[in-house]
C-alpha cells in the first residue's frame, strides 16, 4: 500500500517535473513570461501589477479551479488503475508489424540511403501530424455524438480556466484519448519500423517530442487561461492560438463547435470549424444550462453516466450536435449472431473424435467442403458414420507416429507426389478390388495397388484475352519463346504441380530438354515466382502478365465463384489445353488408399470403390471441376463446355519416380 502511495505521489509530481507533460514547470514558466508580456505590453499593465492580475484568486481559487485540482488528483489515481489494463501501443504495433509481413510479402526496407536524422525527422513529423489530426477528429466526435458529449461536457463546465483545467477530464474520455494515442502511435511505429528498420527514433528535447516541446514552450498552457493571445488572421489558419481555444470554451452559441484543433488549425480550416480570434472580445467560459452543481465531484464523475443512460433511453444530453449519424446496432447484432453461429459450428466440427469402431475414419488433405458431399452420399447409401480428420499438411507424419495404433482407415489426398509419400513410407495397405481395377485405368493407379486415382486435373495454360498473340500458344514448349519475356506468371517450381509437369517433360523429352524448357520459362517470368494458381489468374487480370499455367479446376472455381471480383479474373482469361498435336495435356490426380493399420479394411475398400462409382465420379466434376477417372462416366457439363482434350498417357506412377530428377532440374534453374 505504501509503495502504491509512493508511486501515486511520484506520478503526480511527474506531471510537473517531466518535460513530456503539459504542465511541466518549464512550460508553466514560459507561459508566465508570455502572460506577463501580454499584460505589460498589450494590456498596458505595469510589471508590478501584472502578476496580481495573472494569479487572481478569482481565477486560481475559484470553485471551478478547485474542482480542476481535485479532478487532476483523483484522475491520476483512477488512471493508475485503468491505464495498465488498456491495450498497449506496443501490443497493437506488434500486431500491425506482424500483419505487414503478410501484406507486403516480407519486409521491403525503403529509403536505405537516407541519413538517420532524416528518418528520425520524418517519423517525428508524421507522428505529430497523425496525433494532431486524430485529436481533432476525436475532439469533434466528443462534441458531435450525444453519448460522448455527456462525458466531454465535464471539461467544458470549467468557468474559470488555469493550465490545470487540462486535467478536468472525465475518466471515460481519458480512456478514449488513451486508446486514440495507442492507435496513432502503434500505426506510426509499426509502419516506420517495418519500412525503415532500426533507424527510426523520435527527435526529442529533454525527452519530449521536439514539436510538442516547441508548442509547449510557446505558451500552450495559456490555452486554458484568461490571457488572450491571438496570432493574427494568417497564422490562425495554421496554428491554434490560445485565444482560439478560449473561444472553443465560450458559452456564446456563435462559438459552439469551433476550434477543435490542438496545435494545428488546418484541420478546423479543412473541417469548416475554424473560428479566428477577434480583437478585444469578452468571453465567458462554461456551458449553458449546466447542472446545478457543475463543480461537485459527484456531478463531475457520475452525472455523465446518468445522462448517457438517459440519452440512450431517448432523452437528450445538453447540447448535442449531429456530425455523424447515430450508431445503429442492428447490423452489429446480426453479425454477432453470425459469429456466434460460426463459432458453434467450428466447435461442433471439432468434436468429431470419439468415433466407434464401426465408423469409417478418414485422414484427408482435401478440404471439408470438397469431401463432405461424398461423405454425405456414402453415409446415406450405407448408413455408415464417417469421421474425418482434415489437415493441409502433416497427416503422413501423424500416421507414421501413430503406427499400428492409428485409427485411420482411409487416406485421401491430392497429387501423385503426396500419394507417393504415403506409399513410400509404407503407410498404405495393398488392396485387391475388382471394382477398382475395372473403374480405374491402369496408368492411374499404383502398380502395387496401394493408391488409386479418383479424379483427374489438367495442367492447362491460361492466356489474357487482351493478348492477341496468345492464340499462337499450342504447347508448354511454346512458352519458352522469347516473345513471352516478362509476360508469364508462375508459382514456384518446387510446388508439386509444377514438379510433376517437369517430370512429364523429362519423361517425354529427356532431362536436358526439360531443363532447357524450365530455364526458358523462368527467363520469361514477369515476376518472382509466388502465390497459388488462383493468384496467377489474378495477376493476368491485373495486367502483371499475360500467360500462366494452372490446374483446370481453379479456372472453374473462379468462373463460378460467389465473389464477383473472382469471376472477373476468370473472365479475363481463356483456357488452352496444350500439346494437343503431340503427347497431350499433362494431367495429375487426386486419390487415396487404405491405411496400412486400418481396423476396418473391408469397409475402407468399399468406400474407395464408392468413390469410383458413377454417383461419386459425377460429384468430382460438379463440386470441383475435376475430370472422372472412370472411363464410363462423362465429365460434367461445365467441363464439357470448356472443350475436350487429349491427355498425356504417361503412367502417373512415373511422375513420382521422376520427382527427384525434376527437383534437381528446378534447383539448377533456380525456379
Amino acid at each position, binding site marked *: 500500500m505504501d509503495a502504491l502511495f509512493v508511486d501515486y505521489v511520484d506520478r503526480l509530481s511527474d506531471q510537473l517535473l517531466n518535460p513530456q507533460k503539459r504542465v511541466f514547470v518549464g512550460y508553466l514558466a514560459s507561459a508566465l513570461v508570455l502572460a506577463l508580456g501580454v499584460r505589460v505590453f498589450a494590456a498596458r499593465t505595469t510589471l508590478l501589477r501584472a502578476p496580481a492580475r495573472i494569479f487572481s484568486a478569482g481565477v486560481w481559487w475559484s470553485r471551478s479551479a478547485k474542482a480542476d485540482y481535485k479532478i487532476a488528483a483523483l484522475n491520476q489515481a483512477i488512471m493508475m488503475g485503468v491505464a495498465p489494463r488498456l491495450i498497449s501501443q506496443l501490443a497493437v504495433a506488434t500486431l500491425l508489424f506482424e500483419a505487414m509481413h503478410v501484406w507486403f510479402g*516480407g519486409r521491403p526496407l525503403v529509403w536505405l540511403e537516407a541519413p538517420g536524422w532524416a528518418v528520425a525527422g520524418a517519423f517525428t513529423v508524421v507522428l505529430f501530424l497523425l496525433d494532431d489530426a486524430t485529436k481533432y477528429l476525436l475532439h469533434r466526435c466528443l462534441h458531435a455524438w450525444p453519448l460522448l458529449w455527456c462525458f466531454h461536457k465535464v471539461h467544458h463546465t470549467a468557468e474559470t480556466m488555469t493550465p490545470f483545467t487540462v486535467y478536468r477530464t472525465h475518466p471515460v474520455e481519458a480512456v478514449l484519448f488513451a486508446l486514440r494515442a495507442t492507435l496513432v502511435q502503434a500505426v506510426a511505429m509499426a509502419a516506420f519500423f517495418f519500412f525503415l528498420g532500426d533507424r527510426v527514433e523520435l527527435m526529442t528535447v529533454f525527452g519530449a517530442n521536439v514539436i510538442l516541446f516547441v508548442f509547449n514552450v510557446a505558451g500552450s498552457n495559456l490555452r486554458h487561461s484568461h490571457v488572450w493571445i491571438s496570432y493574427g488572421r494568417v497564422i490562425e489558419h495554421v496554428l491554434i492560438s490560445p485565444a482560439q481555444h478560449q473561444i472553443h470554451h465560450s458559452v456564446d452559441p456563435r462559438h459552439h463547435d469551433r476550434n477543435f484543433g490542438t496545435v494545428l488549425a488546418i484541420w478546423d480550416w479543412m473541417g469548416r470549424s475554424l473560428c479566428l480570434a477577434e480583437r478585444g472580445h469578452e468571453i465567458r467560459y462554461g456551458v449553458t444550462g449546466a447542472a446545478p452543481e457543475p463543480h461537485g465531484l459527484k456531478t463531475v464523475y457520475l452525472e455523465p453516466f446518468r445522462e448517457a443512460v438517459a440519452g440512450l433511453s431517448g432523452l437528450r444530453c445538453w447540447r448535442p450536435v449531429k456530425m455523424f449519424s447515430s450508431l445503429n446496432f442492428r447490423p452489429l447484432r446480426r453479425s454477432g449472431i453470425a459469429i456466434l453461429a460460426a463459432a458453434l459450428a467450428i466447435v461442433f466440427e471439432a468434436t468429431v473424435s470419439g468415433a466407434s469402431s464401426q465408423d469409417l475414419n478418414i485422414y484427408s488433405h482435401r478440404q471439408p467442403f470438397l469431401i463432405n458431399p461424398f461423405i454425405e452420399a456414402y453415409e446415406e447409401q450405407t448408413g455408415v458414420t464417417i469421421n474425418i480428420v482434415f489437415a493441409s499438411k502433416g497427416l503422413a507424419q501423424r500416421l507414421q507416429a501413430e503406427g499400428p495404433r492409428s485409427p485411420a482407415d482411409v487416406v485421401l489426398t491430392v497429387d501423385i507426389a503426396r500419394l507417393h509419400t504415403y506409399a513410400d513410407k509404407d503407410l498404405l495397405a495393398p488392396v485387391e478390388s475388382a471394382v477398382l481395377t475395372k473403374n480405374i485405368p491402369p496408368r492411374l493407379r499404383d502398380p502395387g495397388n496401394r493408391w488409386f486415382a479418383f479424379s483427374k486435373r489438367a495442367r492447362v495454360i491460361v492466356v489474357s484475352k487482351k493478348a492477341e498473340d496468345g492464340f499462337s500458344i499450342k504447347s508448354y514448349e511454346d512458352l519458352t519463346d522469347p516473345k513471352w519475356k516478362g509476360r508469364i506468371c508462375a508459382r514456384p517450381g518446387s510446388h508439386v504441380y509444377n514438379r510433376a509437369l517437369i517430370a512429364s517433360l523429362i519423361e517425354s523429352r529427356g532431362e536436358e530438354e526439360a531443363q532447357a524448357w524450365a530455364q526458358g520459362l523462368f527467363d520469361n517470368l514477369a515476376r518472382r515466382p509466388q502465390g497459388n494458381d488462383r493468384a496467377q489468374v489474378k495477376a493476368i487480370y491485373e495486367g502483371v502478365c499475360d500467360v500462366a499455367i494452372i490446374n483446370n479446376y481453379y479456372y472453374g472455381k473462379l468462373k463460378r465463384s460467389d465473389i464477383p471480383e473472382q469471376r472477373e479474373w476468370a473472365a479475363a482469361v481463356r483456357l488452352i489445353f496444350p500439346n494437343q498435336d503431340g503427347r497431350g495435356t499433362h494431367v495429375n490426380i487426386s486419390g487415396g488408399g487404405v491405411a496400412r493399420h486400418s481396423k476396418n479394411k473391408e469397409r475402407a475398400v468399399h468406400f474407395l470403390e464408392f468413390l469410383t462409382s458413377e454417383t461419386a465420379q459425377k460429384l468430382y466434376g460438379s463440386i470441383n471441376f475435376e475430370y472422372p477417372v472412370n472411363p464410363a462416366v462423362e465429365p460434367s457439363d461445365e467441363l464439357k463446355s470448356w472443350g475436350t482434350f487429349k491427355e498425356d498417357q504417361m503412367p502417373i506412377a512415373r511422375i513420382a519416380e521422376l520427382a527427384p530428377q525434376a527437383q534437381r532440374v528446378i534447383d539448377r534453374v533456380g525456379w
Partner: protein
Amino acid sequence: MSKAITAGTAAVTLALLSGAALADDMVYAGFPVTVKGYSGSKTTSVSYTGQIARHVLHDSLKKLAGSGNGKPNPELKAKMMAYFGGKDAGREIIAPATKGPFAISQSAVDDISKGKNLSGKTFEAAVTGMPNGMIGPELVEFWIDKASSADKGFDKDNGYDYPQLISKYVMGAVFYNQAADGYLDEYLSADKKPNDKPYKDGAAYTGKEHSWDEAFGYFGTPAHTLKLTPKQVYGIAKRKSEAFADADYNKDGKVDLRTEMTFGPAYYAAGFDASVYDRSNGTNYLHTITKAFLDGRKLLTDAKGEKLTDEQRDRLKRHASVITQNWEKVLAEATFKYAGSVYKDMVKLQTITESNGDPSKQFRKYVKHWGELKGFALALQSGKNNLGETATRLNRLIGAGPLLLNASQVVDIDSQGNYVRDQGPDWGEYMLHMAKVQKLMIDQFGVQARNNDVTQEMQDLARSLGDRSSAEND
C-alpha cells in the same frame, strides 16, 4: 616512491592471498574421497573425464562435418562415425586444438578418457521436429551421411548447414539430456547410485558424487568458473590469446581440457550473460548453474559417504532444479537469438534480391543461422519434460528446412533419404514465423537476454513515446 611501491605490493599480495584462501570454495575440484573403506591411492573423488571426452568428440565431429568437398566421401563419413559412434583408440583431437599462445595439453581423445562415444549417450526418443520420426542417433547419423557429401557442410539446394545442425542438436540430445534427464533426475532417487556405496567397485567416488560430477562435466565449464567473469569464460572457448591466462588456472603453461576449458553449453550460458551484463535484462546463467553444481557437490562431500537422508536429497534436488531450469533457459535463449538472426538475414536477402544483387554470401549466413536455430530448437526438446504443444508449435513454425530463395522448403525425407521439397509459406509469413518463435520463447521459458530481438527497437521506440497514465484534455 619506494614506500608507495612496497605498500602497493603488500596490498596486492594480501589480496591474492585472500583470494587463494577462498579458492577452494569457489573451484569444482579437490573434493576428498568419502567412500567408506576405500583402499586406493586417489586423494580426490572428483572425476568427469568421460564427459569432457564427449565434448571433445563433439567439437571434433563438428569440425569434420564442415570438411567435405561436395562429393560423396565414404572415408570422411567413416571418420565422422568414428567420432560419433566409435570407441576405438587413437582418435586425435581435431578440436579444440592449440591456437597460437593458447596451448592445450591433450592432443588425443584417449589422453582424456578411453573408449567413449557420443551415439551411446544420444537421446533415443523420436525427433518429432524432423520427418520420419528418426530417433536421436539415427538423425545424427543421417546428417553425418549428408555432411560427408556436402561442400564444407553446406547443402545449398536444401538449405542445410550440417556442422551447425549436428553440433547444436548434440548439445541438447547428449549433454543436456544426459544431465537433465539422467544424472540430475532419476539418478537422484534414493535407490539409484546411493551415496553409501562406491559408484562401482573400487571407485574413489560414491554413486551420488560421481553422478553429480558427470552432470557437471556435461555442462562443460572450467572448474574455476566462479573465479572468472562470463566474458572470460566465453573468451576461453574462443581460445583467444588474452584468454589463456584466464584458462590456465594451475599456471602450468597449458590449458588442461579436463578442467580448464569451456565447452558448448557453458559457452552459450556465458555468452548470454556477457551480452547483457550491463543491462536491466541482465542474466546470470553461468554462475547460477555453476554455483548450484558446487553447492550440490559440497552437500555430497558433507554427507561423508553416508546414505543421503530425504532432507539431503530434497536439497540436492533443489540444486538440480536450478541447474536444469537455467540450462533449459540457455537453450531457449539460443533458439530466440537464432530466430532473430534468421529474421534479420531474411530482411537482408529481400533487400539484395529486390535490387538484383548477388545473395549467395548472405544466403550462406542465413543457412548457417537456420541450422543453429533448428539445432537448438531440437536440443530444447531433449530435456526430461515433454514440451507438448510448445514443441509442436516450435517445429511447425521453423519447419523441416529453411524457406529457400525459390520459395521452396524441405517438407519430407523419402525412404531413400532424399529430401522432398514443396512450395513453402510466403516470404513474409516465414519471417513472421521467426517472430513467433521469439514470442514462444518469451511466453514459455521467460527468456531475458533476448539477443537479436526482432522488435527490440520498436520496444525502445515505444518507451520514448511515454506513457498514457494521465488524463489530459484540450
